[in-house]
């Protein structure tokens, strides 16, 4: 039998596509890229901050216990210090008196860090939106990655939010203009802590992370 002449290796091989890599993986050959293993590592060990604000915190605690078992997703290590945590779960109503402390905790967390707004109050103020003393959403001051609606959301919803966050992390490129903020030099990650003013927090929002939504146009009933 005559063997076919070996083709010379191309000088600059085309990078493997994801499909080819999956095919090799099926045959027991593990190839990876730096980006993939970096994102795999940081998405599978998200350590939340041990921090609860209101009734949503009860659901967060339930999610961390044996029945719902957040450790299946690698996030069972609730850290008591913000300096050891990756994930801030804003679980509950943020009053204006509490908001500076939440933002201070966020600033104390090292990058890479993520924020989940859990429940209607953390997203928008929820049932207290028209009141005077509740922040109308924590995203007015800190960047939020995942919003989990509900009042309160069930533990399954929190777990789904965590899985969504993992998927978001895995899709992030580690270089280029779409890289997350901790890999870039041109973004200032510090969130200014608002002061207690005479009538409201000052400033009442952080314009670099939040702008008012486009006004909703309503047609008047004739």
């Amino acid at each position, binding site marked *: 039998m005559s063997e076919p002449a070996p083709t010379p290796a191309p000088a600059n091989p085309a990078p493997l596509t994801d499909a080819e890599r999956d095919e090799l993986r099926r045959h027991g050959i593990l190839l990876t890229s730096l980006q993939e293993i970096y994102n795999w590592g940081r998405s599978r060990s998200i350590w939340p901050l041990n921090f609860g604000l209101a009734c949503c915190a009860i659901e967060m605690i339930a999610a961390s216990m044996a029945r719902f078992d957040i450790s299946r997703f690698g996030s069972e290590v609730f850290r008591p210090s913000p300096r050891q945590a990756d994930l801030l779960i804003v679980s509950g109503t943020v009053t204006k*008196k509490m908001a500076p402390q939440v933002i201070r905790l966020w600033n104390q967390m090292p990058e890479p860090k993520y924020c989940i707004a859990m429940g209607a109050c953390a997203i928008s*103020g929820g049932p207290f*939106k*028209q*009141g*005077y*003393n509740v922040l*109308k959403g924590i995203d007015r001051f800190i960047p939020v990655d995942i919003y989990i609606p509900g009042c309160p959301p069930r533990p399954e919803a929190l777990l789904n939010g965590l899985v969504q966050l993992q998927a978001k992390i895995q899709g992030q490129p580690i270089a280029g203009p779409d890289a997350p903020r901790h890999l870039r030099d041109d973004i200032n990650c510090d969130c200014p802590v608002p002061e*207690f*003013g*005479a*009538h*409201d927090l000052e400033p*009442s*929002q952080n314009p670099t992370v939040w702008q*008012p*939504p*486009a*006004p*909703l*146009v*309503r*047609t*008047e009933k004739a």
Partner: protein
Amino acid sequence: METVEQLRDRLLARFPGAALTVVTNPSPSAQHSLVIGHAQAVEIATFLRDDPALRLDQCSNVTGVDWPDKEVTETTKVTVPDPAGGPAKVVAQTSKRLEPGYLEVVYHLYSISLRHGPVILRLRTGNRTDQVSVPSLTPVWRSCEFQEREVYDLYGVQFTGHPDLRRILMWDGFQDHPMRRDYVEPDDYQWEPTPHGEVMAKAKQHYPAAPAAPAAKEGGAA
């Protein structure tokens, strides 16, 4: 337990000249209350606590009420004699007068040892602006302390004789009293998904004016 009228008569016998007014409650609960003047309020409260027939040893609730200025229209019928000598005419005359508003503090008293109550006391301020002090009953019932601080925080009633009169819910630099009827909360929510009533009127300030509707169509659902 004796009725409020009996209690008032007994208090008048014990404290001659004390300002005591019974406010009847026409609702089925029939919880009539007693407005007491500032001068002898602490003595009367101490008497109510220590009297062997009453022993009102628990103050379960301290509430603030804001009564704004209101315009009262009164209609009186006046008999006008007919100058021509005929029968006298009855003419209705309406007069308007401004009833000044005041702030009110309501105390609900119970007796744990004798198992009766409530006896309801009211203290009224002179007006809503500069004469807003009432005597504190914290020296008589220790449980009043935090609740009087709350009334001070939310209504602006100054309690003379309170050991530690500070704000309890809002921050120290806050200048308003949010539960007053004329309080205007900060305008910090931009739109509502289903506004109606007062919220609709408030939200309309953020909606574009009607002629600008075509330009705003890009912004979202009409």
